[in-house]
Each structure stands twice: as structure tokens, then as C-alpha cells.
């Protein structure tokens, strides 16, 4: 029943409200002293030598892709796991094929060196 999720919703809303308070309160009541020292990422420590927003290596994209694919795969494992005990091999065989195709993809990416960070 959807009503069962009401506490969850209340929790989410409470968390949002709390976060909002934690952000808004200091901006209203906190002291503000503007000077160059304050604008440094660290008041003491290393002097930044580069813009923090630099272009990432495209390798991250492949990692993110892999994450997405195996995330989807995991989603499909849940309902399958629920029926595995009843259906046994009838459920096992399709999932083996499903995973085999994905593992082929993973092996291919691995062997092509897409996961080597290298230099």
C-alpha cells in the first residue's frame, strides 16, 4: 500500500527542511567579512595553482557506462532471485544467458584496455 511509504516521505521532507534551515540560517545570521584571505579555498595551506573545474579524462565515461549497465543488471536480479527457488533451472538458464552476454561485454572492454588507467 502506498500509505506504508508515508513515514518515508515524511522523513524525506524533514531532511529537506533541515538541510534548508542549515543553509539559510548562516546566510542570514552569520558574520560576513569580505577579504581576499576569506575567498581562498583554504585560508591556510596550499595556494591553488589551477582552476578546480578542469576537463576530466574520457576514461571516466567508460567507467560510468559500466556502472550504469551493471546497475541495470542488478535491478533485474531482484525479481529473478525471488522466483529462483520455485523455478530452479527454468529461471537459472535465462539468467545465465543474460549475464553471459553482459560478461562478454565486460571482458571485451577489459581486454581492449579501456580499463587500464596507464599513463
Amino acid at each position, binding site marked *: *500500500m*502506498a*500509505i506504508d*511509504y*508515508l513515514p518515508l*516521505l515524511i522523513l524525506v521532507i524533514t531532511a529537506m527542511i533541515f538541510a534548508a534551515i542549515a543553509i539559510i540560517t548562516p546566510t542570514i545570521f552569520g558574520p560576513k567579512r569580505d577579504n581576499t584571505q576569506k575567498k581562498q579555498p583554504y585560508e591556510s595551506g596550499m595556494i591553488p595553482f589551477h582552476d578546480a*573545474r578542469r*576537463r*576530466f*579524462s*574520457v*576514461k*571516466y*565515461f*567508460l567507467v*560510468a*557506462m*559500466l*556502472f*550504469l*549497465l551493471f*546497475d*541495470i*543488471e*542488478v*535491478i*533485474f536480479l*531482484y*525479481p*529473478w*532471485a*525471488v*522466483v*529462483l527457488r*520455485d*523455478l530452479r533451472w*527454468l*529461471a537459472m538458464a*535465462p*539468467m545465465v*544467458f*543474460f*549475464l553471459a*552476454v*553482459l560478461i*562478454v*561485454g*565486460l571482458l*571485451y*572492454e577489459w581486454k*581492449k584496455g*579501456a580499463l587500464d588507467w596507464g599513463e
Partner: protein
Amino acid sequence: MSLPEMSALFPTLQEVIFVLFALLIAVTSLIAAMAPNLFHNALGLVATLFGIAGIYFMLEAEFVGVSQILVYIGAIATLITFAIMLTRGMMFGRTSAMNRQGLAGAIISGLFFVVLLGIVFQVPWPNVVADITDGEALIANLGALFVSTYLLPFELLALLLLVALTGALLLARDR
């Protein structure tokens, strides 16, 4: 107030929650489509997907809701963020979401909305498609369907993922 007492209030409460989610979806999807900063567009999209997950929960499609959160908010949002960070020039400056065809686009989407609205008023509600089983039985049903009636789409999905992986290799590898 205990939960059973609350469920006496249920119809109105459900409506309130629905309206809240609908508002969230409407506002954040506008952000996703129109905000001048690409990163804000992406965040707006994530919030939209979250709102849609909420609607799924209200429709008692818990599994779809959880999948939505895991896949769309977990993985696809990450992928979009990466894609933005990988692209030179998109991290900096403003990327306007509008071009010369903004007005034409607005008119056509407006017309599409009117047509959909017309259909909504035409349909003799309620429209019951199938009996709904709840909770764990639903997920078990889903699992059984994956390995029987929908075996072929299930395996095709693996193939689709393989295509995506190979394609990513082809497009996104350093040479």
C-alpha cells in the same frame, strides 16, 4: 495520531501528496528544459526523475519506483554529470537552452498538451487494464514473467546493454 487513523484521511492526503509531486515534476522539468546553465539542467532533470519515482510509489509500483531511483537517479544522473565534466567548454560559461526555434517549439508543445488534455477528457475513466497484485507477489510475478512470457525481451535487453558497451568503446576511447 496512529497510522490507521491517518488512513481515514487517506483520500485527501493522497491527493495532497500527488499534487506536491506533480508540482515538483512540473517545476523541475521546466528547470531541466530552460535553465541557462547546463549543469542546472542536469540537476533539474534528476529532481524530475525523483518526482516521477514518487508517482510510481503512489501507483503502488514499488519495484518500478526503486528501479527508477537506482538506475535513473543513481546511474544516469552520474553519467550525465560525467558527460558534462568531460566536455570542454560546457563546464564554463552559459549554454543557452534557447535558440531561434524556441517559439515554434513552445507552440508545438502547447498544441501537443492541448491534444493530450482533449484525450484525457474523452477517455471514459476509470480505465482498468489489469488486476493489481500487491507487494512481494508482484515482484515474484515479475520474476516469473522475465523467464517465461517476456523471456525474449529480457534477453534482448542484455543485447541492448552489449551494444551500449561496445558503442561506448567506439566513441569514448582515447586514441
